[in-house]
């Protein structure tokens, strides 16, 4: 193929979009619909993952310090706790602070007026890097001299981990299935567009056009349609997501759910939509045209 023909081939590719307007419109609509479905599900899965992760972060171990230790000795245990591998953070809570928090939690109930700080123990609130290792870390904490007792909700942490794993597997499987279905639908639409132009392709073959020369305008067309679909789907996804999040934030019953702002997903979403649009456009054209090349 001569370099001087590139301009002609690109022009033909763009011209083809308008010449076969209805088929182009159908291909873009199908691409947009499929990408929005895949995109929406991916965002939903991501948000659920973030929510579960946030809830999981709230799982913590309470480490009670032996009441015989002095304040200074109690505070020195923090270094040993932080030295453990799976410990993300530990916060010292003095007896006084613990009592104050307790009373506040019970709305300053006068029933606790007689309780003295010395009735309670100094404690550490420990958050972990990996909650699935909570049991092992708890056992290590109990080994530290000066630690009287610990309190950890293994079952809750385990539950969150299981939910997260199930969510991961389900979302990956569903996204894969949706992507394959989208590819099949888009490829079929492109195939119809090619069928519409089979005579043109046959004439090109008959007069001695090379396969590359025949393919390039269709690839340009597929690329352009794929990109158009991706840009439109991306825009609609953004607008729709923002509107939905705004709506949810006004409903009190749903305030428990926090959604990540679309802006934080901008780069991955652009990349995913562009890649998916390009992939379905180019691969769809490539595989569809093969059928009509054997003339």
């Amino acid at each position, binding site marked *: 193929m001569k370099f001087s023909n590139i301009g002609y081939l690109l022009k033909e590719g763009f011209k083809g979009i308008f*010449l076969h307007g209805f088929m182009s419109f159908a291909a873009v609509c199908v691409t947009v619909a499929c990408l929005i479905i895949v995109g929406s599900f991916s965002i939903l899965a991501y948000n659920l993952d973030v929510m579960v992760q946030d809830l999981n972060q709230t799982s913590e171990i309470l480490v009670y310090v032996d009441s015989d230790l002095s304040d200074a000795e109690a505070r020195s245990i923090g270094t040993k706790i932080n030295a453990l591998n799976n410990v993300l953070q530990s916060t010292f809570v003095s007896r006084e602070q613990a009592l104050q928090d307790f009373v506040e939690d019970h709305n300053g109930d006068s029933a606790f007026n007689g309780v003295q700080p010395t009735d309670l123990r100094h404690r550490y609130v420990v958050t972990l890097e990996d909650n699935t290792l909570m049991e092992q870390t708890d056992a290590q904490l109990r080994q530290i001299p000066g630690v009287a007792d610990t309190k950890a909700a293994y079952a809750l942490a385990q539950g969150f981990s299981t939910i997260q794993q199930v969510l991961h597997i389900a979302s990956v499987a569903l996204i894969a299935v949706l992507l394959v279905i989208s590819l099949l639908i888009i490829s079929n639409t492109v195939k119809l567009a090619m069928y519409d132009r089979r005579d043109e392709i046959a004439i090109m073959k008959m007069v*001695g056009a090379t396969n590359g020369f025949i393919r390039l305008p269709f690839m340009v067309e597929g690329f352009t349609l794929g990109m158009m679909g991706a840009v439109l789907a991306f825009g609609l996804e953004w607008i729709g997501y923002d509107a939905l999040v705004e709506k949810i934030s006004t409903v009190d019953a749903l305030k428990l759910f926090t959604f990540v702002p679309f802006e934080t997903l901008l780069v991955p979403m652009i990349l995913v939509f562009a890649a998916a649009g390009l992939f379905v456009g180019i691969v769809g054209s490539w595989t569809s045209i093969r059928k009509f090349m054997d003339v």
Partner: protein
Amino acid sequence: MIEFTDVVKCYEQGNKALNGVTMQIDDGEFCFLVGPSGSGKSTIIKLITGELRPTSGTVKVNGYALERIRKREIPLLRRTVGVVFQDFRLIPNMTVYDNVAFAMRVIGAREREIRDRVPYVLELVGLENKANRHPGEMSGGEQQRLAIARALVNNPSTIIADEPTGNLDPARSFEIMALLQEINNLGTTVLVVTHEKNLVELFAKRVIAIDDGYVVSDGRER
């Protein structure tokens, strides 16, 4: 030059279309290929244009050995063979000029060459005043002349016309045959596949008759 030597062609379904065809059409010759439907005429055309490969035997077309031609050489072979069909196979949304120019563009010709060559070929087939028309606005005879112009524009050494007058009335059929003869006079090899006995008799040219996959006669019509 077109040369078939003991060519057998069997289709996948098992039916034998050609049973050892041997023939030779020299450069610059005008030749008719006649025979009833299903006799193997279309198979011969498909073998010449590289759409099919022979099951056995050898096919040589303009220097290409088609029994062992590489896929990427097929477009080059097709540039040496212009094909005209009974149903014209024009692109309806292109003008007369663009239908012809299209054949040059798809083999990578430069715009300047196209601007020089297309008007010359349109004049040769008598369509110089209809360059801006669309095929749908033209008669059957004119459409066939346009198809011939498209087949000619890349200057092939051979023109194959497959039932070129099948959709035309006798007067237009004669015009098309006269045009093909004129093209032959300019040095292009012409092979006309037809079953119209009248035309074959009118133009005293070499006639290869084929029946049931065999060449049953090869000679000049008197």
